[in-house]
């Protein structure tokens, strides 16, 4: 078939040597290549282990993958158990430490990996029989050692901790919990608490329950005869004891009666993560499978999807907007997502819903459809170069009960998708009136106007419904000046403040898992030096000493501007409100919000150099609890820096915040002062 195309292309130069191909346009592609997807040889061991062999002699290499036929693990209050168990499998066996196991695998020039529901081993064929022994040892006789579990736990928790700052991770967690429901295996959320609940005994039980031959597939791909594969499977996995696996039946998640809005309030957010999601009745191999993949790619597949063209190229709301559609035997899921500027949250939801309606209500044009089909066909063809693809196909056919020639016919079926079918699947699968709209963002700034999409509900970052953040209303009789006086009094009496001559704070700052030394020294009046250092080397130094200002960061001097001077002056005062009143700063009470769960009054402070910052005072104690400052950074939009003050300590009658959390969006700095000394008789000359 291909031949004819080539001949058509080349016969011109063939007949007239002076003539050449038409260089003004790209050559037409040849006919779609015939895909040869090898069918595996299959057999089942006495213990129920199903074995597939896909012989491929291209390289003298064999890969064996063991995969459990489990879609999701129901873990309940031990969520994370499956993943941790998978990691623990490879950390030593009954007779080998982790180091010995690593050496044994590498001696064979091989690789071995394990996960919650699968394991894989690969090496050249001559070493493969020995590698198989190691693979079986890992699966049948793992050490499941308590010390190693602690290492895995530590890594897992540090992963969870860092994802708490990640709005995308919060969005994913809440979305899956709302869409699937907490009772569905797909809707469970792994937390520090659930991870801490995992004991060695649980891991042992997990392995015993799930890692059983009669619910697993062993797939060989590579230069191996089915007879050899069978012998290896028998020898290494023949003794693997059968288990009992009760396939759980999950309740189908309820579809919301109407579209609603779920907000996870994150006051620190300067961008909203918006996701429009729902379950879909879509399983692999169903008639809608391939057409729906085409439809999803037209809607939101990468840079060429409509969501990208609309939300990024046309409106500039976001850096990227995509949709995804995942089929599943249990229940599939659709979502369209984008991270958008706060003020464009409403408009972005509108545009996403518009695109859902357009793809439901109008037929896709020929050019757009054929371009997308070419793109998918090309990607499919290229994926076949990897033997792992073939193994995945064989597994997918088995666990999804697909026709044996499903992948063989994939391109033909892809080619047959027409505009009519694309519209049909869009209408069948996407229902804009029954969607979960999940937003992780700053509720105060974005919630207004969202009721038009449906009821607005609030959730915490673990997907539990919570009350709407109450609006904090400041006492109307309170003037800004009176509030400043209260704030000063909260820090300390006039006498206590006057008595303070010097202050020295020492502690640590943790940044992205690293611990730095933090030190601030204040000598009244108006002198202060703050340093952040690592191993004795200063990383940052900010100083105002005797009216001289200096800021050094990463070894470079920052230019000293008027607002920098103002900031340094403030840092040298324990109650900068005194400066505001004395120097006539612009002060305005603009409202309130919850800070760490308590009501706080929001004061807008405008400095003489016209810089604007917000200071939040606790509505009861009047102590400073938060500051917030936004700045336009060319090319990057608005950058917001927030700082939280907690752990107030009374030192000689003056309240000093011993903990400060700086939130710079991408980066957080957690400062803890554990050593606070006052009135040591320090002089300006001590501020070096």
């Amino acid at each position, binding site marked *: 078939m*291909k*031949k004819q*195309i*080539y*001949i058509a292309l*080349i016969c*011109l*130069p063939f007949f007239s040597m002076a003539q*050449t*191909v038409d*260089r*003004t*346009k*790209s*050559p037409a*592609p*040849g*006919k*779609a*290549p*015939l*895909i040869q997807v090898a069918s595996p040889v299959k057999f089942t061991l006495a213990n129920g282990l199903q074995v597939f062999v896909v012989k*491929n002699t*291209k*390289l*003298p290499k064999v890969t064996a993958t063991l995969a459990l036929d489990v879609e999701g693990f129901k873990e309940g209050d031990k969520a994370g158990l499956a993943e941790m168990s998978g990691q623990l499998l490879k950390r030593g066996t009954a007779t080998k430490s982790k*180091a010995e196991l*690593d050496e044994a695998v*590498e*001696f*064979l*020039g*091989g690789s071995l990996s394990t996960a919650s529901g699968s394991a894989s081993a690969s*090496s*050249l064929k001559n070493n493969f029989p020995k590698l198989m022994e190691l693979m079986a040892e890992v699966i049948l006789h793992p050490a499941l050692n308590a010390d190693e579990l602690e290492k895995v736990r530590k890594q897992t928790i540090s992963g969870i901790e860092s994802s708490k700052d990640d709005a995308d991770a919060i969005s994913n967690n809440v979305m899956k919990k709302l869409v699937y429901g907490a009772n569905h295996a797909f809707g469970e959320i792994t937390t520090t608490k659930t991870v801490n609940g995992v004991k060695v005994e649980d891991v042992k039980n997990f392995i015993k329950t799930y890692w059983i031959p009669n619910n697993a597939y062993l797939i060989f791909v590579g230069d191996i005869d089915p007879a050899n594969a069978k012998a290896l499977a028998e020898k290494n996995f023949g003794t693997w004891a059968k288990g009992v696996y009760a396939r759980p039946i999950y309740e189908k998640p309820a579809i919301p009666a109407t579209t609603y809005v779920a907000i996870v309030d994150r006051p620190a957010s300067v961008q909203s993560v918006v996701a429009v999601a729902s379950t879909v009745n879509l399983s692999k191999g169903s008639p809608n499978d391939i057409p729906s993949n085409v439809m999803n790619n037209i809607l939101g597949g990468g840079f060429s999807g409509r969501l990208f063209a609309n939300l990024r190229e046309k409106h500039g709301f976001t850096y990227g907007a995509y949709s995804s559609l995942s089929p599943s035997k249990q229940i599939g899921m659709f979502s369209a997502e984008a991270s958008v500027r706060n003020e464009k949250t409403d408009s972005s939801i509108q545009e996403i819903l518009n695109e859902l309606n357009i793809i439901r209500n109008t037929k896709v044009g020929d050019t757009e459809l054929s*371009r997308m089909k*070419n*793109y*998918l*066909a*090309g*990607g*499919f*063809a*290229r994926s*076949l*170069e990897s033997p792992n693809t073939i193994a995945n196909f064989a597994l997918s056919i088995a666990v999804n009960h697909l026709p044996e020639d499903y992948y063989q016919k994939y391109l033909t079926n892809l080619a047959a998708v027409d505009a009519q079918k694309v519209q049909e699947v869009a209408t069948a699968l996407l229902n804009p009136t029954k969607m979960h709209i999940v937003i992780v963002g700053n509720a105060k700034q974005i919630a207004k106007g969202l009721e038009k999409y449906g009821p607005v509900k609030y959730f915490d970052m673990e997907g539990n419904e919570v009350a709407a953040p109450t609006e904090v209303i400041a006492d109307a009789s309170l003037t800004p000046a009176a509030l400043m006086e209260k704030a000063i009094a909260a820090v300390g009496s006039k006498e206590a403040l006057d008595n303070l001559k010097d202050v020295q704070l020492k502690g640590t700052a943790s940044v992205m898992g*690293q*611990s730095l030394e933090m030190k601030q020294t204040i000598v009244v009046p108006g002198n202060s030096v703050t340093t952040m*250092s*690592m*191993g004795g*080397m*200063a*990383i940052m130094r900010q100083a105002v000493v005797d009216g001289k200002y200096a800021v*050094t960061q*990463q*070894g*470079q*001097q920052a230019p000293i501007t008027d607002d920098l001077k103002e900031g340094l002056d403030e840092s040298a005062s324990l109650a900068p409100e005194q400066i505001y009143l004395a120097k006539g700063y612009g002060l305005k009470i603009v409202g309130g919000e919850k800070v760490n769960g308590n009501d706080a009054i929001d004061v807008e402070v405008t400095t003489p150099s016209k810089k604007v910052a917000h200071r939040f005072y606790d509505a009861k104690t009047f102590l400073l609890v938060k500051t917030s400052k936004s700045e336009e950074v060319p090319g990057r939009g608005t950058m917001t820096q927030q700082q939280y003050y907690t752990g107030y300590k009374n030192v000689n009658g003056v309240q000093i915040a011993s903990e400060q959390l700086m939130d710079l969006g991408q980066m957080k700095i957690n400062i803890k002062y554990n050593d606070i000394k006052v009135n040591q008789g320090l002089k300006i000359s001590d501020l070096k």
Partner: protein
Amino acid sequence: MQKLGTILLASFFFLNGAPAKSQTIQFEKYTLPNGLKIILYEDHSAPVVAVTALYHVGSKNEDTARTGFAHFFEHLLFEGTDNIKRGEFDKYVTNAGGALNANTSQDRTFYYELLPSNQVGLGLWLESERMMHAKIEQVGVNTQREVVKEEKRQRMDNRPYGSFLTEILKRAYKVHPYKWAPIGSMDHLNAAKLEEFIQFYKTYYVPNNCVLSIAGDINKVELKKQIEAYFGPIAKGTLPINRPSIKEPPLGGEVRDNIYDNIQLPAVLDAYRAPKQGGDEYYAFNVLSTILSGGASSRMNKTLVDSKQLAVATQAAPFFNEDDGLFIVLSVANMGVKVEALEESMDSVVNGLKLRLVGEREFQKVKNQITTDLVNSKATMAGIAESLANNEVYFGDANLINTELEKYNKVTREDVLKVAKKYLNKDNRVVLHYLPKEKTTK
């Protein structure tokens, strides 16, 4: 980190050819009248094809006052041609479900398209347009100059330790053009006139300086006719090509320096002067490199990362070229570890190779790892096409892809001891300490 080691090693072999005894790559090689060398490898195991063009021009061919030209062209030649509008070059490929890219070394520039096999014609059209009709215009030069500056900012200036290659090269070489990195000088790019870019194109981007290497699901008989149609009409280049024949004298004593960078964790880099690629010593060196950092059980990972916990990451990186190369050993310090202590431990691991023969089991382990890596490097058509082209250009022997394993098999434990003793010496190395910037201003 163990992963990193393997990947780097694998990609290294990837660049330099890859055989396995049982797997012969039956390729065909011929030359068009205009001097274009063609290598074709037919393999129908998957419906894919890699269309690649390797130009024998890298940063070492550059004028000392115009460094960065070769790499700049890697960008400029995606701008468009007489028949391909600006900005559309890559769209043709992505719309066909393919992928494309290019890279530049000190010795050569390499372009490739990975396509479903029924789109092989598209690859020929794009590569022949690039060679025949590239638009070298002021607008494209200006655009790409900004892109390259941004690339330099992103990959070298802003990336921790990103300047390491530039810093090593300028200390390790005094006279050879390897003394500058392919990224070159932004001042040179700013100063260059359009006419100079056109001249560079006419000099180096000619069929007689190129190997067109195609591997995959092709029909050779018919593909040859298509190649003739697309590439036959391109005129042979006539301008003289600058091929430097400078021999770098010995280093003549240890060179040490501190580099202050925007980093949190200090790092130690030792760059030993090493032989050029392809000789017996080169193969022994690669075995030695795997002993040091191939996988979780390698000496540097086991000692520096696992047992002593002095480093968060460690790596041996062979940097072999057409002319004399480098062997780089580097470690990033763990929190609170002093560079002096780290350097001492690195030296002790490296010196271990000079003191006694590698144990037999360890030696066998490393041979096994290398054999696997060589086989894996033939897993993709792109890898095969690139190996064939590299071997042809560097050694005039595309068939090295089928014989390289023998060269590794010949390496003995004594050979490893010998190269270690000959090259891994203090007076033959550059030592850089990467330190956080503040120290200077304290």
